[in-house]
């Protein structure tokens, strides 16, 4: 049902690459928003896939990505991810 949402990631050198936006996260205080994306990096043996998480800040028509450096913030983000990713397994 949900088609993949592709996006463009532009690095500091101006090089762009295609990424898939997996989902978005919203902090509990609604002050920070995060984007979860993947570059289709799949582990062949297990089928596990790498996802990246960064803070997104709207900037006109684009979004700036800031890396998570605070440990407490990273813990909160992990909690948010787990609550969504493991929803079925708990149910």
């Amino acid at each position, binding site marked *: 049902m949900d088609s993949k949402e592709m996006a463009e990631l532009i690095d500091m050198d101006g090089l762009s690459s295609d990424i898939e936006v997996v989902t978005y996260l919203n902090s509990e205080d609604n002050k920070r928003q995060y984007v979860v994306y993947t570059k289709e990096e799949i582990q062949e043996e297990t089928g596990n896939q790498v996802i990246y998480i960064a803070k997104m800040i709207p900037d006109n028509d684009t979004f700036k990505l800031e*890396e998570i450096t605070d440990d407490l913030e990273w813990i909160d983000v992990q909690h948010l991810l787990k609550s969504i*990713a493991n929803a079925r397994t708990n149910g």
Partner: protein
Amino acid sequence: MDDIYEFKNNEYRLACMQIKATAYDIVTGIMRKKTANLDELFKIRDRIVELTDSFERELEKLDAEEESVKQQTSGDEKAQELAQQPTEKEEDDLNLSINKIELPSTESIPKKEKNQETGLEESNVTPIEQSMDSQTSSGSVELTPITPTKDKPEQQQNDVEQKPKTTPLAKKKFKKTTKQVSKAIMVRPNQLANLRNSRQFQEQILAKQGIFAIAERIQQQQLINKNSKELPDEVERKIEDLTVKANVYYNEGEIEKAQELYDKIRELNNQYQ
């Protein structure tokens, strides 16, 4: 000695007299100027008064004219209303007779050739327009109660179906501000699927916060889902209720319950697809 004093006195006297004379001249001159200025000011004042009086008279005239015009227009409208009332009933009778008579002639109208199924009812439009336009000065004609309603929702659906197809969604752009690599996690396929399924839900939340205008995209997708296969009314209501509850749960922090409801919604959609 006396002569000298007298001579000096005379000189002083002369000087005094001259000073007095000049002072007198100056004062009189000033006075004259003052009077002249005052006279001029009085003249200007009088002119201003005259002008204001004339403006007031003209404004009064204009007000009187406007009132007379308004009275005339109101009288005309009343006369027109009185004239129209007895003729509206006649118009209805005329329309029915005109429709019956002019049905075969309206087929020649090029605009109506496309909708042949509703030709009968749409052909009623043209004679009514002609009769209404001739009798009333207004150009707008309310034809909606006469035209059929069957085709309209179909046309609307067709329009809606076309809209999402013709508007491709632009890719979002994310610009990195540092050279550091983002935090990464390895997830299992089922976890990744759960995260993907939550994307729309999360987009709605961010859209409400004004992060990005994703509401239009979601609406388009919903319209596509609706128009692709029609869901029963009961199912639609269930889905709506579940979405509302899911939003409430999420806002309250009960993410798991919200996710469960979202899964139920997805299952219901999958059942009818």
